[in-house]
């Protein structure tokens, strides 16, 4: 096939990019070379629209061992231990084939983590679907959950937390973000940077098939009516093989023979080989005839672009091939020496003894285009003035029941019961709490993790929204008694070529960065997913933040279930009554305008750190952050989980009971403390200038407030627990 401008465009390149390739090479590329350029210059691999702004992210901190730029980020958790973690999107494939798309998403992120020498110890997921009324939603949800479970359960890594959201902006474009945490010895971390000349390049894992050819470009393509034609590019996951690959890689890593290792993710052999060479400032020569193929007559083009799963590329020390091969033989996996590192600084491909491609590595990596796309700043919307009379006809009880059974608030047990969350025998906080917690095997330490997003806030005001997600993640970690250490982020946005979408991206990133910096909660890894758009309709800006925190002693973990009758519940942080963008406003007042709640980073940090201080002194019986839905929802969840009730103080200072109970002001926590400790706790709070109020006292089985609310926890619980199950079963 003759390569011309049209062929380049069909490969997702622009005219200008094609011209640049010709100029760089000083010739027209052949088809294989063009395909390699298209894969490497694709948004997914090159970050061409985002790179400029990602540089602004706050990525430094005393606990950071490895920030963005590697397969995953690495943080220090004391002793010899480090946690490797990252989140990644698999949105487009999951929309096309929910089971396989989600499954391979989980598989991919786990490979990113064990590539670095870490054994995965926990999985999380953030999933967003269209309106619950939309005809596709149920099947997509069912398929995605089965896919996530199918892969993670089979490998034997517990899925300990996650987040599920519904919003009509995802009707044509669901989000599936998968996150993995791995545990590694600090001194035994593996990187992707190749080093040394004439080192053997090894291919291990599954055979290469024609799966997912052009998957990377699909990940960056807008869906259109031709979506059906793009279907055959979906890959099939094989968790069984991945489990073998995991064990084999970890076994090989115990020997000192790996120089560098890289999983084959998007753009398969192309991006893995180019990245290794580029980081090592080396060349790489591959003989594609040696690549283990599943199908007959695969061409160099197909071999280079295949996205078959469960494969790795390794640069080994000379002379270690035989020993390495023995390990992969034992695990019944393919092993082939397919090339070597060279000093040419070029990617050179041989096939049937002929050179089929020759491209300087720089052209693919450093010279990849970077765009400074135009973007539009968002104005902070005007606050809504709610006329007093609209609250008149409302009853607390019916508002509470309506909100607690809202799809975005109700219990997600139907989902997480399908995930094995206890395998590996170290899960001490299961899904359903503020964050999942797993022990560091064989030690007293534990790691907490959560994943959050708040597209509603980000849509209303991206800068505030960006800050808010980071703060929410920080609060969730504090609520289980862990000290937040670092985050990973998955930035799901629409089409960056549109100024509005690009603006949302830029401002969310700035918001994330500002909060991360203030809280000393750096970003160590992440992923960008643009073009989440179908037929011109884009998603709400949805950065998902994955947070990781540390508990020095797992026995000090906090949970949200109320523990003891007669104890006292305090709300930490000030309730201003901000209703705009709250679930209450949107579902009860049917108002979706206005600014998101403000973020005060000083209070956020101070409140959080003070809660941790109280926890350290063992004053806290239970703890929960106040998030969407407001105080009354947060309280209800604590009651339901602990199977206890609460009598709210009748003298709470209220401007308006609805705005007090349902506003979504930030930086707040509910803590349960023993009556006898009230004085000491109060003192600590005052010393630290933390605003707090006494909310009420724990009672048997009812939620009571004056004569306005008197409802059994059982009734609230039924509403909370039944919505999703009923929706999925019927």
């Amino acid at each position, binding site marked *: 096939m003759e390569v011309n401008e049209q062929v380049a465009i069909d490969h997702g390149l622009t005219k200008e990019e094609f011209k640049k390739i010709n100029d760089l090479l000083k010739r027209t590329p052949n088809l294989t070379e063009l395909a390699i350029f298209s894969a490497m210059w694709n948004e997914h691999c090159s970050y061409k629209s985002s790179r400029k702004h990602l540089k602004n992210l706050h990525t430094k901190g005393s606990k950071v061992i490895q920030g963005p730029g590697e397969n995953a980020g690495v943080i220090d958790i004391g002793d010899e231990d480090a946690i490797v973690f990252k989140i990644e999107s698999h949105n487009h494939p999951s929309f*096309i*084939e929910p089971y396989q798309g989600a499954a391979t998403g989980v598989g991919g992120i786990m490979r990113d983590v064990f590539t670095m020498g870490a054994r995965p110890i926990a999985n999380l997921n953030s999933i967003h679907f269209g309106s619950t009324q939309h005809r596709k939603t149920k099947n997509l949800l069912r398929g995605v959950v089965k896919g996530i479970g199918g892969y993670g359960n089979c490998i034997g890594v517990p899925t300990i937390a996650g987040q599920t959201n519904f919003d009509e902006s995802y009707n044509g474009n669901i989000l599936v973000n998968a996150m993995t945490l791995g545990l590694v010895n600090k001194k035994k971390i593996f990187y992707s940077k190749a080093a040394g000349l004439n080192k053997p390049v090894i291919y291990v894992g*599954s055979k290469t*098939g*024609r799966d997912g050819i052009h998957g990377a470009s699909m990940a960056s393509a807008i869906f259109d009516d031709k979506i059906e034609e793009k*279907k055959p590019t979906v890959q*099939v996951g094989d968790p*069984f093989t991945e489990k073998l690959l995991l064990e084999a890689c970890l076994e090989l890593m115990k020997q000192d023979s790996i120089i560098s290792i890289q999983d084959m993710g998007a753009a398969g052999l192309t991006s893995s080989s180019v990245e290794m060479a580029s980081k090592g400032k080396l060349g790489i020569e591959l003989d594609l005839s040696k690549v283990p193929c599943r*199908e007959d007559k695969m061409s160099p083009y197909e071999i280079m672009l295949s996205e078959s*799963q469960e494969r790795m590329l390794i640069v080994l020390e000379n002379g270690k091939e035989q020993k390495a091969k023995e390990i992969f033989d034992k695990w019944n996996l393919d092993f082939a020496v397919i090339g070597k590192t060279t000093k040419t600084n070029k990617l050179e491909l041989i096939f049937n003894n002929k050179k089929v491609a020759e491209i300087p590595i720089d052209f693919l990596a450093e010279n990849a285009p970077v765009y400074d796309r135009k973007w539009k700043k968002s104005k902070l919307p005007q606050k809504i003035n709610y006329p007093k009379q609209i609250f008149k006809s409302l009853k607390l009880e019916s508002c509470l029941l309506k909100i607690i059974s809202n799809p975005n608030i109700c219990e997600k047990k139907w989902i997480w019961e399908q995930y094995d969350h206890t395998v590996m025998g170290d899960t001490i906080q299961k899904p359903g709490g503020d964050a999942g917690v797993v022990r560091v095997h064989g030690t007293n330490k534990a790691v907490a993790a959560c994943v959050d997003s708040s597209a509603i806030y980000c849509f209303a005001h991206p800068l505030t929204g960006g800050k808010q997600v980071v703060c929410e993640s920080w609060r969730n970690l504090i609520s289980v008694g862990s000290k937040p250490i670092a985050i990973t982020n998955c930035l799901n946005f629409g089409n960056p070529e549109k100024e509005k979408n690009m603006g949302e991206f830029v401002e969310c990133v700035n918001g994330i960065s500002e909060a991360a910096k203030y809280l000393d909660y750096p970003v160590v890894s992440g992923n960008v997913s643009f073009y989440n758009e179908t037929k011109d309709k884009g998603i709400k800006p949805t950065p998902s933040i994955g947070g990781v925190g540390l508990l020095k002693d797992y026995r000090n973990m906090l949970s949200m279930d109320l523990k003891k009758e007669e104890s006292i519940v305090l709300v930490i942080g000030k309730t201003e009554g901000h209703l705009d963008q709250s679930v209450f406003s949107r579902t009860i007042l049917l108002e979706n305008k206005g600014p998101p709640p403000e973020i005060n980073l000083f209070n956020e940090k101070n409140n959080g750190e003070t809660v941790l201080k109280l926890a350290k002194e063992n004053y806290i019986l239970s703890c929960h952050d106040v998030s969407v839905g407001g105080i009354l929802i947060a309280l209800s969840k604590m009651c339901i989980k602990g199977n206890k009730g609460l009598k709210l103080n009748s003298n709470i200072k209220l401007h308006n009971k609805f705005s007090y109970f349902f506003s979504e002001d930030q930086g707040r926590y509910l803590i349960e403390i023993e009556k006898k400790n009230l004085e000491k706790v109060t003192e600590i709070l005052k010393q630290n200038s933390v605003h707090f109020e006494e909310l009420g006292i724990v009672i048997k089985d009812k939620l009571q407030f004056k004569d306005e609310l008197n409802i059994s926890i059982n009734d609230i619980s039924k509403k909370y627990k039944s919505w999703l199950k009923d929706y999925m079963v019927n």
Partner: protein
Amino acid sequence: MKIKIIVTLKSGVLDPQGKAIQQTLTGMGFNDVKEVRQGKYFDIETNESDEAKAKKNVDEMCKKLLANLVIEDYKIL
């Protein structure tokens, strides 16, 4: 009447089960086995007595539910 359907993975789509079965068979001494591909089989009992109509219905069921045309093909026997 009964209609039988076979749903198979498209050629080229990875079949992890088939691969594992083939390896096991070889391990058990069935050395002649070159490849195994696994698919699904459905027996559909319908009240529709007109065969042509029944098959047309089943064809629609395959398209809408029984097969995932992204990765599978189907055949009505």
